[in-house]
């Protein structure tokens, strides 16, 4: 009787994706691995990268963030410089949340101007996020794609708007983040739809929707793991780097509630809540982390071994 020997490695490899930088900046390349994280075998040419979020619009900061990024709220360019300069963020996620009708409703042209401002303030790679309102985003993404004078990534493309987002990105040479709500099949479907449009696979990142610690983290963990296993097993549509937003960690009461004296210092608690969420994402296989607390950039980068 013959016993099949275990396969020593995976047949597939994750596409290497580069987030381009401006003159004088350092591009970020992630992906390219043919193995799972935390394990000794396989090749891991690129370590995961940690970036920070820059937001427009009104911001209600929890105690742990008010003291650190609070002074830069309302000034995206200054915040961007600080993140990429002093705090060591390797890339920036510029969220144009301020264009949402419920968040002040900044105009589309204002949003595009912010993008231009941030891009000239720092050479770091940038991912630009829409505001989440379908009608506004339909105007915002083309405007941003045109306004960005160097290649960025547009976040995010989903089933409803992917033609618009990917079309704008293709026309101006940007990349896209393909989004799905914690569902491996929908993640694959999104990437197949993008491929049908002729979108180059090395300009696509997967955003699997990241739940915060205690608030859905475990679902995200297993979906990232499954996406990665499928990609490494040869499913090309899922062989893309994974981007995780840690912002959901800051929605947890445990991260923000100062009134619970027995829970310990709310500043340390908030920061750790985000860090723990990020560590779990790294262990699951995430390639890009977007955090909000400045000290988590170094901590998570230090943990991003491989």
């Amino acid at each position: 009787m013959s016993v099949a020997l275990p396969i020593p490695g995976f047949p597939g490899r994750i596409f290497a994706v580069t987030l381009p930088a401006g003159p004088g900046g350092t591009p970020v390349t992630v992906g390219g691995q043919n193995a799972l994280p935390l394990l000794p075998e396989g090749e891991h040419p690129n370590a995961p990268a940690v970036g920070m979020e820059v937001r427009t619009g009104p911001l209600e900061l929890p105690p742990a963030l008010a003291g650190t990024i609070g002074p830069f709220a309302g000034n995206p360019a200054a915040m961007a410089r600080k993140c990429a300069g002093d705090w060591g963020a390797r890339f920036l996620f510029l969220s144009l949340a301020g264009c949402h009708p419920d968040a002040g409703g900044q105009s589309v042209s204002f949003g595009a101007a912010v993008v231009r401002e941030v891009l000239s303030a720092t050479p770091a790679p940038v991912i630009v996020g829409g505001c989440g309102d379908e009608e506004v985003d339909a105007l915002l993404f083309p405007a941003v794609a045109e306004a960005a004078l160097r290649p960025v990534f547009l976040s995010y493309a989903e089933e409803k708007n992917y033609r618009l987002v990917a079309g704008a990105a293709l026309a101006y040479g940007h990349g896209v983040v393909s989004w799905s709500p914690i569902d491996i099949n929908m993640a694959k479907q999104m990437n197949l739809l993008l491929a049908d449009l002729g979108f180059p696979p090395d300009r696509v990142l997967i955003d699997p929707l990241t739940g915060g610690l205690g608030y859905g983290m475990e679902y995200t963990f297993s979906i990232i793991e499954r996406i990665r296993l499928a990609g490494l097993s040869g499913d090309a549509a899922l062989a893309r780097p994974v981007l995780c937003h840690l912002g959901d960690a800051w929605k947890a009461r445990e991260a923000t509630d100062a009134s619970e004296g027995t829970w310990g210092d709310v500043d340390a608690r908030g920061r750790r809540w985000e860090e723990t969420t990020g560590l779990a994402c790294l262990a699951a296989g995430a390639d890009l982390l977007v955090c909000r607390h400045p000290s988590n950039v170094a901590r998570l980068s230090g943990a991003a071994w491989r």
Partner: protein
Amino acid sequence: MADETGSIRFHPDGVDVPGIPGESLLAHALRGGIPLLSPCGGESRCGKCRVLVVGKTQGGEDPGALTRAEIAAGIRLACRCFPSSGDISVTILPGSRPARLTAYLDGKDLAGDEPFLPLSRAALGSVPLGVALDLGTSTLAGTLVDLSDGSVLSRATADNPQMACGEDLISRVVFAEETTGGFELLRGRLLSGVDGLVRRLLEASPVPGEVTDVVAAGNTVISHFLYGISPSPIRRPPYHPVRKEYPAVPGETLGTAPATARAMWRIFPSLGGFVGGDVVAGILASGMHRREEVSLLFDVGTNGEVVLGNRDWRITCSSSAGPAFEGGEVGCGMRAYPGAIESVRIEPETAAAEWTVIGRGRPAGLCGSGILDLCAELFRAGIVDRAGRFTSRGAGRRRSTERGEAFVVVPREKSATGCDVVFCESDLKSVLRTKAALCAAAEALLAAVGLPREAVARVYIAGGFGNFLDLRSALTIGLFPPISLARFAPLGNASLAGALGALRNRRRWKEALSLASGTLYHDLSSDHGFMELYQRGLFLPHTDEESYRSVLAAEIRA
């Protein structure tokens, strides 16, 4: 107070029905035996029971189902319109009259040749006759057999008269529960339909004789009605029928007409609440229960039933696939009646649609096979993307409607109704849900027994829709798992073929009885993997498009 309610005259039948205050026009029509479409069973959901009213009435002006101009012209929904006073004239609009389905569909029997061994050999003075019946949700079909030699004497079909109380089974069960005397009415309608069918069979028979045996295959709800048991438990958790086996009884016990009152009635056993004797008969006709190779059997209807197995084991499930292929839930959908588009081709360059119509007249809508073709062609031509959304291609053939952007299949000047026959994104989404549920049901059965798709040697497609569908179109949109076209075999009316087989050979009937206990019922609502399989199917052709491409590259554009 208004005058007393007078009489209600229904046109074009010209029948007068005495008015009863507080009773809807639909209820009056039912009482008077007037044919009137009511797919939802009078729940005011479908908007298909349209009548033109002259006289004083109240209600039935649902703005969601009728336009302002229609309401002004006196058009009402019969299920929500009540007579108020005086005589009323009610004209049933052409689109709301059930069309007669005359086509008789034979079933194939692939179980193999066998000696003639009739169920009973009654030594009567006259020729012993047997009747095989397929009691479908919408259609009743029957075959009359000479039990002295097994030859077929006549064939007939008829509409199931229960249709007026709801087009789908659940509507009928609700009708039976919520209407006073509803159960008796539904049972009476079924019996009258069956009696009428048998009468026509006997009239058409060249040989006079006496019916000694009846074998009937029907879904679980119809079998319950026929046997006189309430089907109510089937629609409530845990969805179990009252009984799965129906011991043979003479017709007089069931209350049938004298022609079959002395005959022995054998009703095929049910496998579960939503997998009935029609499926058991289908298994019999396919012969999958006699072979060593593993087969899949699909019965495509409102509920898609799937059976997987071979001679040693079988597992079955029912998936609430939805009525998209029976013309429900699709704006331009209709049953396979004259005037329905049965096949569609789209010219990729111009996006112009060509079609063939049942009965060669002008098209009024699309039946299941036409809907399936249309979806496959829209996808092949690149007019819709894999997620079922319109792309920029073929924009010239689209226009906006109150239901969103829609592809114009037939322009109004060529249609029978004077309106465009259109297909919109929500219609395509409903087809996607239907096909995902059916394909996922088969995948769930394979997963439950741990077999790969490659293990399936034959795929049988039972039912009228299964007989007329274009297999290439079906596989292009992923209605079935990716299995080579050569392994597919349409069975036609397998339920009738199975009943006929059992009538001619008593061993077959014994097999049917043993299938009931030898086939496992797999409950999809408690299958944890089903929702994921379903989500995988909500894509064209499937999220696992590689398998479709590798197995079916030659047949489909994947």
